[in-house]
């Protein structure tokens, strides 16, 4: 039953993204597809991925990423962290790569609310963030390192390898097995994981959580004025989500 559902949703995915079955191998081609479609500009909608019409996304331009290689690496990595499944879209379908792009270009990326004066020391884990690097600098380096590690291990760029191979590399980052400059790979992985969830579940005005599908999967109704009339109800309340932008 479970397997059957999965197959249907895979078929839907293939149908909407307009790709032949043979082209879908692991997570790699999801991102490869991003570049492929948009680069060749031969897709009428420039769709990147998603489970249905609502969660597909068109090319929105970049504020931070410079090329498809960077963008695809983040798209693929976040999709491995938060994959599409029979419940609904993954990071790509939810627009998480665009969320991360705009966040890295703003306050978040430039650490404008953080104390960034030296001297910088490594510090103990209990002392938290002690890097001299901003989040934007950490991401840029992290993207390079993901690609370099893929090339080292599999002789292909990160976006060209199989999903399981991506997981192997992400796990190596998570376990601090990759040497990064000015920051640990564990720290970069944690930022990436957190940013993925932020993109999946923040208000759609931030470019992620497309169509509020992140909220819908989770049973979170988003912005609601009041629950005073429902909160004493013994039954679980399924409420159609609402975004701040939908507020009038």
């Amino acid at each position, binding site marked *: 039953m479970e397997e059957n559902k999965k197959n249907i949703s895979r078929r839907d995915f293939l149908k909407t993204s307009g790709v032949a079955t043979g082209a879908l191998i692991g997570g790699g081609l999801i991102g490869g597809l991003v570049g492929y479609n948009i680069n060749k500009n031969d897709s009428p909608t420039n769709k990147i991925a998603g489970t249905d019409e609502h969660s597909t996304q068109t090319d929105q331009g970049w504020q931070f990423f410079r090329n498809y290689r960077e963008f695809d690496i983040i798209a693929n990595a976040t999709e491995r962290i938060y994959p599409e499944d029979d419940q609904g879209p993954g990071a790509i379908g939810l627009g998480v790569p665009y969320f991360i792009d705009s966040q890295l270009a703003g306050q978040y990326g430039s650490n404008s609310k953080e104390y960034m004066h030296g001297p910088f020391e490594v510090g103990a884990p209990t002392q938290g963030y002690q890097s001299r690097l901003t989040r934007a600098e950490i991401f840029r380096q992290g993207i390079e390192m993901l690609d370099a590690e893929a090339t080292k291990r599999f002789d292909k760029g990160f976006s060209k390898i199989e999903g399981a191979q991506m997981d192997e590399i992400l796990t190596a980052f998570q376990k601090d097995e990759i040497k990064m400059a000015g920051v640990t790979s564990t720290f970069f992985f944690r930022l990436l994981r957190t940013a993925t969830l932020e993109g999946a579940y923040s*208000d759609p005005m931030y470019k992620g959580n497309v169509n509020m599908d992140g909220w819908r999967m989770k049973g979170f109704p*988003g912005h609601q004025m009041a629950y005073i009339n429902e*909160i004493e109800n013994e039954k679980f309340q399924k409420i159609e989500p609402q975004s701040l932008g939908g507020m009038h």
Partner: protein
Amino acid sequence: MVTTLSKVDVVVVGLGWTGGIIAAECAKAGLKVVGLERGEERGTEDYLKIHDEYRYAVRYELMQNLSKETITIRNNRKMSALPMRQLGSFLLGEGLGGSGTHWNGHTWRFYPYDFQIKTMTDKKYGPNKLSKDYQLQDWGITYEELEPYFYTYEQTIGLSGEDKNPFLKRKDPFPTPPMKRTPILKKFEKATQDLGYSPFMLPSANLSESYKNPDGESINACQYCGFCERFGCEYGAKSSAEITVIPTAIKTGNFETRVRANVVEVIKSGNKVTGVRYINTLSGEEFIQPAEVVVLTSYVMNNAKLLMVSNIGEQYNPDTGRGTLGKNYCYQILPGATGFFDDQMNTFMGAGALGMTIDDFNADNFDHSDLDFIHGGSLSITQTGARPIESNPIQRDTPTWGAEFKKASIHNFTRTLSIGAQGASMPHKENYLALDGKYKDAYGIPLLQMTYNFTEQDRALHVYITEKATEIMKEMGAKTVESRTPITDYDIVNYQTTHNTGGTIMGASPENSVVNSYLQHWDAENLFVVGAGNFAHNGGYNPTGTVGALAYRSAEGIINYSKTGGSLV
């Protein structure tokens, strides 16, 4: 170039709960008050689009901008103290209303035991219950003395509650009835009753009904929208300074609010202070605001720092035990358990202080003769409104990312409940505040340095109370229960609680405290220092109720002082 302004009766530094209370009471009594606040002006109209977890809860929109000022942190004196570069463990407030804008509204009275903890512990368990390294001391005030001021604060905020805590007899009724008993709370109520404990509704500053306080300020009825902690209330239904005491102060005509005014020094001359020096954060201009009375109401950290940079009082030295400024910094210990259930619940609905509590393991309400710690904590279930970015409950054996993570975190979002305690924190000689020798703020002034770690007392308390939380969660029918893991070293990374206390403690003698029981500085009679920094230890409750009571009592002291002068004790 420093501009000296004309003298006022009272200058208040920081406009959160404490500054607002002092300003309102003094202005009502006819004193001319200026309130200096380094953040922005704000109020209910600014919270219209507040249901934004990312901006407010994750990116800390209402909190202190650390690029200008932070603290440094280390676990012990052997470590090098490093800046808290981003917010994490606790969330410092900034702007009108302070951290009282983004609080949850849990409002308690500390126990009689708290105020006389040294005397009562020694009497019952002997003088060596804890080692000499724990600097337990009485507060220089009793519960009975403070009781009327608790009630004044509760009336100001319209506190919603029920008088069913068997361990604390109240003389006065709660101003408004308790919040709604939701199905989630009822599960806790039944389980704790079946276990022989005494549950009662958590006293809430999100109000059960609309209310007009004795100053004539209106507070609206809570709508249970689920956005309290880290948010302001768009309904004006969560009591905070900007909808109560600040408008009360303004109405008198005796109060002026000056925002974007960052105080950098308290000016002392002989055994008095003459005013404060501040910087306009937009223009960079410096001003001196002379005043008959200076009141520091800028939270635990900044109150201590201003005294330190102004050389008022003697810095505490952990080697010699001499000095009182910076001593007895405490935090809060957070035992608890999480339960995973089969059925979906409305976990996303709620209010910051919607909860039920048992106090059977708080204070000295249970016998500690055979235990290797003192005190305890209030154990509560709260339904504050789960939000999707920061609430991804998974069991310990579930991967933290990937397909399994996604599935489990979505499944559990509406099927997980937690019971948590506000565990008391006892002062230790190695936990203290000082000035940092290396790092500076945007104005070139040293950062405050925190040296803090959990102690054996904390660890023992955590284990014991966690067992109780686990027992209750099992009784509530959770399919799987996970107890919180025992605490090791304190870390600044993960959010724990904004219940920092101590550093400018109150007491009966200048030998062991910074201020007297009116929060009047022992070394400068016209200087008052108000906040949870006055706590000689941290109790088993959220601190704001006790802070509010102390602020009302201090205001009375300031008004009396401005008539008579001299020491109030």
